[in-house]
């Protein structure tokens, strides 16, 4: 029997993203050279929502892309007997050279996904800076990586799992912390 708790409902997810959008405007003097890149899968709709918020608040059209990090994973070729993860499409329809990139993901955990995403991004060009946006920071970092914008810090144990559900993919907005049975 696993116990689970909803740590964010739809309302809180919405308010957190609105707050992050304001923080982005506060920390970046101009949005002219900023672009959002969401990490597949759930970083992509979060990036799209932030873009919509930035448009609402500051009237800025921030270009938005999607990044699949599968081919850069550090655990990819280490498990001889497991099937390969499915590779999805990366779509960054703008040059990242000289831009400030806001890298967006749903959960920050070990930091390994972000490490892979940084490697992937650098292959597209040389951004002037990369900032990290996450909806949930659950701790337990294994690499020297931290987020610049955090929706909510959720203390967890390694045995728990954090499930972010988003309207665009899962039909509703919520964040659940689930204990391993």
């Amino acid at each position, binding site marked *: 029997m696993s116990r689970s708790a909803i740590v964010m409902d739809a309302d809180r997810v919405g308010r957190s993203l609105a707050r992050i959008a304001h923080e982005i405007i506060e920390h970046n003097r101009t949005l002219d050279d900023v672009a959002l890149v969401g990490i597949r899968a759930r970083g992509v709709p979060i990036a799209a929502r932030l873009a919509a918020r930035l448009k609402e608040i500051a009237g800025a059209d921030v270009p938005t892309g999607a990044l699949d990090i599968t*081919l*850069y994973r550090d655990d990819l*070729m280490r498990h001889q007997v497991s099937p390969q993860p499915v590779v999805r499409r*990366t779509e960054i329809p703008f040059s990242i050279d000289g831009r400030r990139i806001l890298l967006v993901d749903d959960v920050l955990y070990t930091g390994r996904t972000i490490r892979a995403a940084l490697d992937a991004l650098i*292959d597209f060009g040389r951004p002037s800076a990369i900032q990290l946006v996450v909806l949930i920071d659950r701790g337990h970092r294994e690499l020297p990586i931290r987020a610049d914008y955090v929706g909510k810090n959720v203390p967890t144990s390694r045995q728990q799992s954090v499930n972010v559900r988003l309207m665009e993919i899962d039909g509703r907005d919520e964040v659940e912390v689930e204990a391993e049975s």
Partner: protein
Amino acid sequence: MTTATALRSRHLLGIAELDPGEIQLVLDTALAMKEIGTRAIKKVPTLRGRTVVNLFFEASTRTRLSFELAEKRLSADTLGVTVAGSSVSKGETLADTARTLEAMAPDVIVLRHGSSGAPHQLARVCKASIVNAGDGMHEHPTQALLDAFTMIEHKGRLAGLRVTIIGDLLHSRVLRSNALLLTRMGADVTVCGPPTLMPLGLERLGVTVMHSIDAAIEGADVVMMLRVQFERMHGLFLPSVREYFSLFGLTPERLARAAPDVIVMHPGPMNRGVEIDSAVADGPWSVILEQVANGLAVRMAVLYLLAGEGDT
């Protein structure tokens, strides 16, 4: 049909061994791989530290280069072995070569061989994953996959698509692999060629056989021309090249019977003026060069998917 999440085998020996879900998985993965070719740095670190041997017992330019580049874009270390000459006893040579290669512990062996079934034989004796890059008159699975990928890019689907394949059906592994793949994915396949270059039992592949090129082209969404393989013809298959062209060559006039948005494909290398008129090969219908570009993406997908498989 649901898309598979993995390939069941660690070898790609032929389309015959793939189910529709696995075919779809390769095509979906190829779509992601194609994007890599548009980047500033056209390389990903995925197969770092893996060794791929390209073992080619038959002449090949585009397939060999395409595999080599696909391997390099995935950061694999590659070795090329080109074995020239046909006087060697093929069975012995293959077994000997396989033993030698095994000592170098490659992860993948890409094999092109003149004998049908050579990759299957290699798969039984080698620990490495085997990719069939064309075996005799049997199969050429990556060609069929890249053809399907190109058709989907233009037509958005395979199911219900009317595909006509014309030419030297007897010697063509491209035909076999394409017929297997396309019928499996629900396309409607018609084949046409001279009776002397038509193997018995073609209908068993699930295709419609026609002898008139005009009837075969009527309403086609895709026309695929096969190369006349003179190098495999050791008898009197054709009276003359000129007669072949007049009866089975693809000209703009003949193509007018196809669907208005028809695309023309050819696995290459082309014999201009034999199976295809230059006006068609270089015309607006032709997607022949796109096929080459897509081959790279499809081969990257295959190498990626095979690298994660288990010991089955």
